[in-house]
């Protein structure tokens, strides 16, 4: 089951540049929440702060409070490795491990975290590939084909399966369909819709139609601030803020 996310006073920096300015946001469990905004508004930085991926970039750091379920992400005893295991992430460009088979890719997170039970691993791999709607296309070549030999859309679903295999509570998606063709995109969107039964999903997207199609809630970011956060329908039809309206009606961005 998914868990909710509570963000309070989150600031993020790249060196001396403030990229996120005091963000407060409450993401409900088992919903899809979209994060939209023009390039450079901080939306990717925001989701990367939720699982402490932000700080893997040299000189980048964040402070504030992020609670994912019971877990205090930026608490003093918090381990970024453990945080990332419980909050899965799918990236903009499909990034399968190039020297690993399809099976190896999905099992990587389990194996490299010391999981040894072969039978259980087989089950988790199958379950994850089914959840990612890729099982039927790859089940005959699990060990023979490399992850990199799949098409772009399949690779992205493989990456989703890989993230799901470690059984996270939240799934972050950073423009997961922006490098894909329309058919692959619609498959990923369908998938996102299915995934919210089991997970809390936060998706960054450039594509406002996509946000409208998949998300119940949408947050609009501009220049490092969260301008407006509401039901998706409200954001796209009767936004409260003039800047949100200008953006969603295509006047800038």
């Amino acid at each position, binding site marked *: 089951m998914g868990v909710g996310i509570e963000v309070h006073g989150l600031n993020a920096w790249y060196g001396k540049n403030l990229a996120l300015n005091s963000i407060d946001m409450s993401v409900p469990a088992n919903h899809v929440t979209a994060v939209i905004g023009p390039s450079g508004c901080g939306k990717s930085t925001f989701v990367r702060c939720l699982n402490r991926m932000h700080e893997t970039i*040299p000189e980048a750091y964040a402070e504030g409070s992020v609670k994912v379920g019971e877990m205090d992400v930026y608490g003093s005893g918090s381990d970024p490795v453990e945080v990332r*295991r*419980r909050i899965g992430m799918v*990236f903009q460009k499909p990034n399968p491990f*190039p*020297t690993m088979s399809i099976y190896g890719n999905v099992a*990587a997170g389990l194996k*490299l975290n010391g999981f040894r039970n072969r039978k259980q691993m087989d089950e988790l791999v199958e379950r994850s590939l089914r959840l990612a709607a890729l099982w039927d296309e790859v089940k005959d070549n699990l060990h023979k*084909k490399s992850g990199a030999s799949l098409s772009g859309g399949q690779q992205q679903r493989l990456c989703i399966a890989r993230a799901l295999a470690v059984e996270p509570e939240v799934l972050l998606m950073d423009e997961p369909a922006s490098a894909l063709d329309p058919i692959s995109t619609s498959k990923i969107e369908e998938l996102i819709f299915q995934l919210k039964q089991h997970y809390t999903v936060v998706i960054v997207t450039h594509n406002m139609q996509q946000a409208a199609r998949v998300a119940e809630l949408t947050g609009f970011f501009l220049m490092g601030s969260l301008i407006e956060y509401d039901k998706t329908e409200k954001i796209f039809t009767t936004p409260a803020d003039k800047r949100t309206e200008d953006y969603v009606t295509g006047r800038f961005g």
Partner: protein
Amino acid sequence: MDQGATAFAILAAILVLVPLLAIFAYLVIKGIGSVNLAFLTQTPKPPGEAGGGMANAIVGTGLILAIASVFGVPLGIGSGIYLAEYGRNRFGDFIRFTADVLNGVPSIVIGIAVYSLIVVRQKHFSAFSGGVALGIMMIPTIARATEEMLLMVPNVVREAAYGLGIPKWRTTLSISLRTASAGVITGCMLAFARVAGETAPLLFTAFGNQFWNLKLNQPTAALSLQVFTYAISPYDEWHKQAWAGALILIVMIVGAVAAVRLTTRGSLKGA
């Protein structure tokens, strides 16, 4: 223009092949006549006596190279990992500079350095000191190759691993190094092949031996040393055996490189 460039590239490739094949062919012509069972299984006979072989030197070369690899490969790969994954700082620059300088140090100087560090202290020549000398020579090549290959691994691959909650050390060893493995192995084989034929660093370390030795702390024969000794000797029989020794050395190097290539080749389609 395009055709001209292609033609030039093909010509250059052929010209590179010529000396390589010529050397090999000449070695075969000169050496094959002296390669026989006795050569491969017996130790040297005193000068003037016919027969005998270089079996002890063949085994000695294998022993010294094994020591060199045990010593040079982990240290080389380890420092390459440091340079690529942690070395974006002044200490990293210093290591990089040192490695490049070490790469240019004449091999005889390395032999003398190991002589004074190990041989003088232990008070005798040894297979171990020869292996250490060759191992030191392997390190800079392997370190720089490992660094360059790791830097070619796209950062999104590392991010994918971090995103799964895999710790950095695990990511480096099981993801980045694995992705770069083909290039790293090539670097190791280049370093191995380069030191396998070295003579100078062994002169004051392994020293050479006319008899069998499998002890790490005793002087040991090596093919390169044996070839050197025989080639400058006044005996015809030894000259022939020197050619045969050189041929065996080349075959051993090519064999080792080919064996490593075959056993580490990936079995995945489309990888």
